[in-house]
Every structure is written in structure tokens, then in C-alpha cells.
């Protein structure tokens, strides 16, 4: 088992404090390995901690215990600023809602991770433009997200997640707001971009049809 560019998760535990003041453990010693270039699907009921897990994998939320190692780098031993930069370079995230930045064009949204990773503005725009073209959005790169269809927004979100050729691609319910045809296309594109860039993929879904595509599966929130 090569740890190089693979995702290794061990003993991740997270409790959220509810408004009533009691702690509720949503993740309890979660551990798994996703090899380079392969993918895993996460399932579980609503409120079971799927999004929380992805946030931890992205280094956005600190776990109470456990470790996340990506490409040999332990996320939570990095300082916060270094972790932000690491995320910009090596982790792509598609959110449960698309979370595109409304004041920026499609192309600028896609270029954001490259810019924060320290790439020059012009080269970031060039790479973003090329990627949008490959995803069939060449005519839309100057559009604001609000001027795009839901399916198009999803593809822009995908482009933003993969543009930096990350080691790890995280996708939270990528098909939830799409019709079946668009959902199918989104999954195809996601798979092809992941294999092109060699990223490991972790997808959250509650759709059995989507789940069926993945050999590797993890169910969270079993305890409740």
C-alpha cells in the first residue's frame, strides 16, 4: 500500500455542541484509505455527518481526534495558513450547494484556486479557460453564475474543483440538484477529470443509483 498521493484517514472523531449545550458525536473513529486515482462513496442519513467528514478531509474543520494524511502530508500538523495553501494546491471541493462566487465570472471562479495557490493571474485565466472549454462551457466563461443553468453551474463548480489538478477531489451530493440526464453527465465528467488528473475522489451521495457505481463505500452515522 503506497502512501504516496493517497488519502489515509485514521480515527477521525468529531462532536458538535448542540444549542442545548450537550455534545453530539457525529463522527466516531472513522478510518479508511483511498488509493491514488481511485474513488470512494460516503452515504448516511441526513445529519449523519457526511458534510462534516468532507470538511475535515479538506482541512476546513479540525477533528477532535484522529488524523488525515494526504500525499504523505498530515493536514492537521500544518499551521492554518500553510493548510489553506495546501488546500488551494492539492484539494478540490465541490460543495453541496455550488457555492460559486456571484460577483465573479465563470472563468474567474474557476481561476480562484490557482490564484490563491500563487499562480499569476494571466496563466490562471488561461488554464481556467481551457478547462471550461473542455467541459463544453467555452461560450459561457464570461457569464456570472446567476446567468448559468443549474447544470452549467455544476460544471463550473467541477472545473473549479479540478483546475489545480488536486490530489484529492471532494464532492458533496454532486447530483442532488440535477435532473437525471445532467446528473449522469456530471458523474461522467467528474470521473473523467479525476482519472485525467490522477486524483483520489470522495463523493457524498444518498442516491442509490450513484452509490451503485462505487466499489468502495463508507456509511457514517450508523450509531444513531
Amino acid at each position, binding site marked *: 500500500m503506497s502512501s504516496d498521493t493517497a488519502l489515509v484517514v485514521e480515527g477521525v472523531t468529531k462532536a458538535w455542541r448542540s444549542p442545548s449545550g450537550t455534545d453530539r458525536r457525529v463522527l466516531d473513529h472513522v478510518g479508511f484509505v483511498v488509493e491514488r486515482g481511485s474513488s470512494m462513496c460516503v452515504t448516511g442519513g441526513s445529519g449523519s455527518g457526511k458534510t462534516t467528514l468532507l470538511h475535515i478531509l479538506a482541512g476546513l474543520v479540525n477533528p477532535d481526534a484522529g488524523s488525515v494524511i494526504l500525499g504523505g502530508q498530515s493536514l492537521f500538523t500544518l499551521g492554518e*495558513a500553510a493548510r*489553506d495553501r495546501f488546500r488551494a494546491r492539492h484539494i478540490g*471541493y465541490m460543495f453541496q450547494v455550488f*457555492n460559486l462566487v456571484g*460577483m*465573479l465570472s465563470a472563468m474567474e471562479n474557476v481561476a*480562484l484556486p490557482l490564484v490563491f*495557490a500563487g499562480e499569476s493571474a494571466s496563466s490562471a485565466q488561461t488554464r481556467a479557460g481551457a478547462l471550461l472549454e473542455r467541459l463544453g462551457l467555452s461560450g459561457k466563461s464570461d457569464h456570472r453564475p446567476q446567468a448559468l443553468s443549474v447544470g452549467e453551474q455544476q460544471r463550473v463548480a467541477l472545473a473549479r474543483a479540478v483546475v489545480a489538478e488536486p490530489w484529492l477531489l471532494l464532492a458533496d451530493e454532486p447530483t442532488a440538484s440535477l435532473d437525471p440526464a445532467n446528473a449522469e453527465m456530471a458523474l461522467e465528467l467528474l470521473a473523467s477529470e479525476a482519472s485525467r488528473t490522477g486524483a483520489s475522489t470522495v463523493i457524498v451521495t444518498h442516491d442509490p443509483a450513484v452509490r451503485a457505481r462505487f466499489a468502495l463505500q463508507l456509511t457514517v452515522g450508523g450509531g444513531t
Partner: protein
Amino acid sequence: MNLLSLILRSLSSRKTSTLLTALGAALGVALVSAVVVLGHEVESSYRNSGSGFPMIVGPKGSPMQLVLNTVYHLDKSPGLMPYRAYEELRDARWVRLAVPYAVGDSFRGFRVVGTTDSIFTERFTPLPKQPLVIAQGRAFKHDSKFLNHLIDDLRGKAVAASRPSSESSGHHHHDHSHEIIAEAVVGATVARELGLKIGDKIEPTHGVEGGKDHKHEHLWTLTGILAPTSTAIDRLVFISLESFFGIEDHQQGALLPDSGDVGLSAAIVYPAAATQRAIMLPRLNKRSDIQAVSPSEVIRGLLDIVGNVDKVLLLEAVLAVIVAVLGTAVAIYNLMNERLREIAILRAVGARRFQVLLLVVGESVFVASLGAIAGLAAGRGLIAAVSDRVAATAGFVPDPLAYVPVSLGDSVPAVPFEVITLVAVVVVSAIAGLLPAAKAYSADVARHLAPPT
């Protein structure tokens, strides 16, 4: 796309709020700019014309009134001094040039001064080292022999008027009006505002406020127009002293029965050597019939008063700027809650805490600076717009493009006040911007990434 273009995008996506807050800063800064430039112009112009007139001799009374009336042509004339005192000064060894001023008339709102052609032929320098220049035409004709004759004649009347009996009538009475050459030279502003040309006839009226008083039924021919001086002289009409005294009305008012002499408003005295001024001022002031003042000293006293008014205004203006700049930060702060999601997204795609801090501080600085630059320009524009009004009411012409340096100490070169203002606005807006920036800095990324519920 870098941090700066993110700032610009963010601001342009909220145009109305951006423009309104920038406008607030602009108004405050325009006020500062106008007060500073005007204050500078008041000071430099008053200081300049103070040194352009080394000494003024006039009747006993308020030195300030004498200076205001003679140099700036404001206020009323403080009275009359004996013509004989002027003659003494004119002929004194220590005096290089003595210029008589007889005031009290006006022509369509512009004050008239009766004087001699020495203001053109001698080195009469209303601004330091800058003699009067006739831009068009020539000086008015001045006949000193005739003037002396006329003065003698008037003195006779004054002596006669001082006697209780009425034997004066018929004695020595000449009507000179038909012999007088009545010509006038006007300042640049007079010519421009009234559209006067060489050869035009003008008809002064008695009194300096408005022109309601009856006319003299004498016409003066315009022979010359002066080049602009940016002083009160631009708003004057100069005529010869003999044509001034030739008017019957003036003769009545100009007689000083007590001294048996003709009255003159003032004399501007240029000593032959600079040191003479300090020696002669106290000597002249010992006399009971005249006072002598140094305009620059009187003006220094005036500026101390004006300077304080200035400082209060400036303080208010600076407070207005601070409030306006704080306003830009508060406006950004108020919108921050709606923007936390956007901030969280930026963080999630790799922006560091410090970068979102810079983004928000940058917005505050950018809006405030934009407003400040507009305000600095508007302040200058305001000066340009009121410059004619100021000229009419304060006796000088403020230059909207005046260079207004601020000294930061002896070892550092002075910089334009605009630079200081801009730096101050940047610093204050950066500090104020930390308030909303702190909110962005400490935003809980994971929580704000969740779909809005």
C-alpha cells in the same frame, strides 16, 4: 485576477453602496480642501499685499480700518488727513515715493481712487517687486501744476469756511470743471466684468455701496486697462486727483476748515531705504494730525485672528472626514453578514485568513481614497467657483491651483497638503476597515459554507 481585482469586483458588485459611501468621504475631503486652500490664499495674499505697501499714512483712528480701506478697499474710509501732510511726505528726503489716495466714489459697484500718475511712472508695487502694468491703452493725464492750483483754491475756501462771517462767497471762486481733463484707468476685473473698452465714457457716483446716489454729471474717458494683479487693484477705477477734486460734491466734503486744508484719504509711502520705515513710523505717530501704519504688522495681527477661525473650521472639516471614512467602514461592516458565505467560499478554495483581511481592508481604503481624490478635486473646484465672490468681498483673488505645501519638519521637504490628506485618509480607512475585516478574518468557514436555511 489578483487581490486588487477582487476588491474592484466586490465594490462594483455593490455600486450604489460604494458610490454613496465614497460620496460621503468626498464631501468631507472637499470641505477640508476648500478650507485649506482658501486659508492659504488668504494668508499669502494678505501677506503679499502687506509687504507691497510698506507704509500707509492716514488720519488718526483705527489702523486696521486704514489698512483694510487703503490696501483691500474694504470697509469705510476712516476719514481725512490734511493734504499738507501728504505734500511733506512727498518732498521728504527719506521718502522715495508717496502716492495720494482719495476715495469715496464708485462706478457700478467698483471703487474709484483719485491719485497721481506716479502709480504708473514711479515704482509703485502693490505686490512685492511687481509694478503696475498697463495692459491696454495709456495712463490718465495728470497735470500737477493744475492740481496745485486747485488745491490752493480749495484751501482758500477751507479758510473762508472756518470764519464765522459769510464774506467768503465770491472770493477766489473759480469754476475749474471745464479745464479738467477727466480720464480713467481701470483694473482688469472692472474692464472684464463691465465689458469696458478704451474710449468708453464712465460716470462715477458718490458713495461706495451701490450706485443709488446722484451722479456728478461729469464723464471720464477710459484711457487704460491694467494687467491683472490678483489684488484688490483689479477691482479699482483710477482717476487723476485733480479730476476727483474738480467735482463740486467732493470739494464740499474734502474741506478741512479746522486746519484750513484739503482732506486726503491716505498716502502710500515707500521709504528710500528699508531701515527708514522703523525710524519714521514712531515719529510720524507722535503727530496729532496723522497716523502711520505698517500694513504687514497690522495684517499679522489680523491673520492671528483669521488663523484661529481657520483652525476651528479645519478641525470641523477633519472631523467630517473622519466620520465619513468611518462611515465607509460601517457600510462595509453592515454588509458583512451577507458576505460571510462568499468569504467562506474564498477560504475553502484556498484564500488565507490574512488575504480575506486584506480584501476587506482594501475595500475600505479603496472607497475612502476614491472619495478623497474626488473631494480634493472638488475642493479646488469650489475655490474656482467662489473666486469672484471672494474677490468682491475680501479684496483678493484666490488661486484655485495654488500650491499649498505642508512642512513636516526642517529635514524633510514640504509636500502638497493633498498628499498628507490622502495618506491620512488611507491610514484612517485602513484602521476603520479592520472592524469589518476582523469579522471576515474570524468567520467560521465550515458553518458559512452550508446552504442558507
